[in-house]
């Protein structure tokens, strides 16, 4: 025992042991079982091997493709919104003009939405995007000259509501990432550019953006995951996993419906495996692109 506590050779393994145990019990075992289950028909806890039948069923499943389309569409649109907008806001906060107090207030206000749970955010946005003509978003719509919209009934208008939640909750956080990245850029770069006569806009494109590349890659990656894994926002906005014509159904929502609501574990596992492979492929290409493998190996 004494030797165990004092051994410098054994110590690191004992220190990382909790992680290894967690990994084995809560990751490796469940995921391996999930792979096995995806090749089975599971009834009352008994699995019967049916080969790739679940995957074939998945391939021909119109609802699955619709859910995948919804997830990818949402992911792409959140990327389009949640990278450039926070980037510009961060550049404004980082600029030398303007009052520091107002910037402090701005940063704090933008961060507050990230503190809310998805439940609270969902409840509020459901009420903001309500159907009555006196609901907030319909008042905004009226201001811009179009009639009351039944937001959550239509595919595109429902998507607008989902994107509004994403924009509200994550603009501030992404802005903070970019701001941290910008403040790490040495000010000498800007001074040198200033002397060479480069204006603010040119400085942004030629100094800020290239030096911010690692942060941008990171934000894009987490946005890709977040987008593909989106479920709860839709679950809360539509007050459950069912939306008109499945317009709010995402891949994870489909996984939840099949696996947890309908207890069709074999088929749901196949959905999960496809999703996991998709995410792992993105993950590994990100870690390769950002040079993390090389850096950690060195």
């Amino acid at each position, binding site marked *: 025992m004494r030797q165990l506590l004092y051994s410098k050779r054994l110590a690191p393994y004992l220190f990382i042991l909790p992680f290894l145990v967690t990994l084995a019990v809560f990751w490796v075992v469940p995921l391996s079982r999930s792979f096995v289950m995806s090749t089975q028909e599971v009834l009352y806890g008994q699995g019967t091997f049916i080969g790739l039948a679940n995957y074939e069923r998945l391939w021909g499943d119109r609802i699955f493709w619709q859910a995948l389309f919804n997830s990818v569409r949402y992911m792409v649109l959140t990327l389009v919104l949640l990278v450039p907008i926070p980037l510009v806001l961060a550049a404004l906060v980082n600029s030398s003009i303007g009052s520091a107090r107002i*910037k402090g207030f701005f940063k704090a206000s933008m961060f507050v939405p990230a503190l*809310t*749970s998805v439940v609270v955010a969902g409840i509020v946005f459901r009420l*903001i995007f309500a159907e009555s003509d006196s609901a907030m978003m319909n008042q905004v719509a009226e201001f811009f000259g179009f009639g009351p919209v039944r937001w959550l009934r239509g595919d595109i208008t429902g998507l607008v509501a989902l994107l509004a939640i994403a924009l509200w909750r994550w603009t501030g956080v992404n802005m903070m990432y970019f701001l941290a990245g910008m403040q790490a850029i040495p000010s000498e770069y800007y001074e040198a550019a200033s002397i060479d006569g480069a*204006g603010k806009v040119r400085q942004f494109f030629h100094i800020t953006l290239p030096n911010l590349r690692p942060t941008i890659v990171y934000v894009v990656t987490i946005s890709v995951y977040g987008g593909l894994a989106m479920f709860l926002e839709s679950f809360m906005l539509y007050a459950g996993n069912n939306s008109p014509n499945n317009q709010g159904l995402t891949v994870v929502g489909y996984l939840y419906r099949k696996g947890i609501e309908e207890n069709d574990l074999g088929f749901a596992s196949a959905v999960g495996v496809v999703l996991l492979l998709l995410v792992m492929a993105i993950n590994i290409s990100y*870690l390769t692109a950002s040079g993390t493998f090389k850096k950690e190996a060195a």
Partner: protein
Amino acid sequence: MAVQQTTARPAPGRTGPGREPGRRSIGPTAAGWIQSAFLVVIALIALVPILAIFVGTFQDGNELIRRGMTFAVDPTSLSLDNYVLLFTDSGPYFRWFGNTLLLTVAQVAGTLLVSAFVAYGFAMYEFRTKTLWFIVVLLVMTVPFEMLMLPLYVQVNDMGLADTYAVIVLPFLAAPVTIFFFRQYFLGIPKEILEAGRVDGVSEFGIFFRLVLPIAKPALAAMAILNGMICWNNFLWPLLVLRSPEKFTLPIGLNTLLTPYGNNYELLIIGAFFSLIPVLILFLAFQRFFIEGITAGAVKG
């Protein structure tokens, strides 16, 4: 205490509007004012949903659910009825509140201890499979929990752990993001401290608990805040594993109020508002730690 320092302290190199030599046609003062006005407008838009929910606590719940939240609030319709209801006959609300508090405190304490412990192993020692395992940490870190939810759900059901608080906490004690953050922090601690401890006859674990943890307070604070907020708001995993109503947490409980056949809408809005209060207070007090913790993932060492 570093309370409020972030907002009050002018950033280095930046002073008020109009102090910079101007260029272009609009003067620095004008540009500064335009920028400030723009930022204030955006900030106010971001605060609208929070303000709406605050105003909603004074409005009739059923009316709110039926007609939605509106800018045209009728001041005469506002009342304290919801507050009276919440503090006299709130049903299970404060039970959810207490459950969430208990679970948050337990999970934060456990996660900090276990994750710092693991991170210490990665930061302070050289061993053969270190790179391999650390890459695994990075891989696990970025995989969204949604990918794991079904296998994990099946697993804990079979282990007979469903509907317990243990199962909400256990899989996440060795939290990859927290491990990563602590590792970065420990890498900056001089190794001489370890050697000095060894010379004094302190065990490897004694060095961690008695010499290193006490000087890691800023990292502990940032991670306590981050994990505290995550636990307080945790929804998906508890939604899957909790069955007994007396074990419900705030997000789970509030979600049960949002049913089409509900008759507790008065409680829904004010309950949602009061669930925000603890996090908001912590944020106002420790804004710096919040931002440090949440943006921690992007810091690459």
